[in-house]
C-alpha cells in the first residue's frame, strides 16, 4: 500500500518519521492461534515419541 492509501487512523500505528512508534504489549497466551499451535505441538511431540518407542 502507498502512503495515500492508508487511513490516517491506521498510520498512527506505524513507525513515525520522528523515530517513534506505538506498541501494544500482549501476552502470547492471550492469542488463540498461539494456544492452539502450542497444544498441537505438544500432541505431535508425544505422538512422535510414541512412534519412536514402537519402532
Amino acid at each position, binding site marked *: *500500500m*502507498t*502512503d*495515500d*492509501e*492508508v*487511513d490516517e*487512523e*491506521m*498510520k498512527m*500505528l*506505524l*513507525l*513515525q*518519521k*520522528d*523515530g*517513534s*512508534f*506505538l*506498541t*501494544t*504489549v*500482549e*501476552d*502470547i*497466551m492471550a492469542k488463540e492461534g498461539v494456544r492452539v*499451535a502450542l497444544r*498441537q*505441538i505438544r*500432541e*505431535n*511431540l508425544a*505422538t*512422535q515419541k510414541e512412534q519412536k518407542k514402537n519402532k
Partner: protein
Amino acid sequence: MGREKKNFGRCALCLEYKTLRDSHIIPELWYAGLYNEDGYMNEVSVDVSKHPKRVRKGYHEYLLCQECEAIIQKYEDEAKRLRDGTGLFSQDVADNLAVIGGLDYSRFKLFQLSVLWRMGVSANPLFAAVSLGSDEEVLRQWVLHGNPGEVGDYGCAIGCHTYKGLHAKNWMIPPDRQPLIMPRSGREGWRYITIFGASAGSSGL
C-alpha cells in the same frame, strides 16, 4: 577453490555477480536468546510429519555480497539499539500500550523492510508465506539505495509479546500473510506478521 565457486553467484540486492556471503534472513542478533547451552535451538511444527529439528546457526543462505551485507548491517545496527534499549525512551499511554521513541526512522524502517524483502527472496520454505510480487523489486531498490518511503508506504508496525509477565524473547514464528482492508477507504493490501526477539515486526502493508 571449490568453496569459492560454490559461493559465487548473483547478489540478490545489487544483482552483480560476486562472491556471496552466507546471509541470514532474520539477523543473527535476534537468535541470541534462542540457543540453549549446547548451542542449538529447537524447530518444532504443528505438522505431525515434521520431526523437531536442531538449528545451530539460524536460517541462512548464499544471498548477498560483502558490500550489500554492509548496507544491511547499518540497518541492523539500528535494530540492535531497539533490542538493547540504547538511547531510546518509552512512555506508557494506556494499559498494554506504550510509545517507544528515539529511533532513526530511515534506518529502522529499512531494517524492517530488509527483513521482509529477505524473506521474500529466500528459498527457505519457512518463509514461503512472503510472496511480494512486483513489490519485491521496489523493496530491493529501496533497501539498496536507502529509501524508506513515507510512513504509510509499506508501513511497518511493531508489537511486543510477554509470557507470564516477562518479555517472550526465546521464540520465533515464521511469517504469516493476511489480507488487509482499510476500514475507511476500503483499499486492499497484504499484511505480513513475523515474530522474533519478543517483537512482532515487519508488518509491511
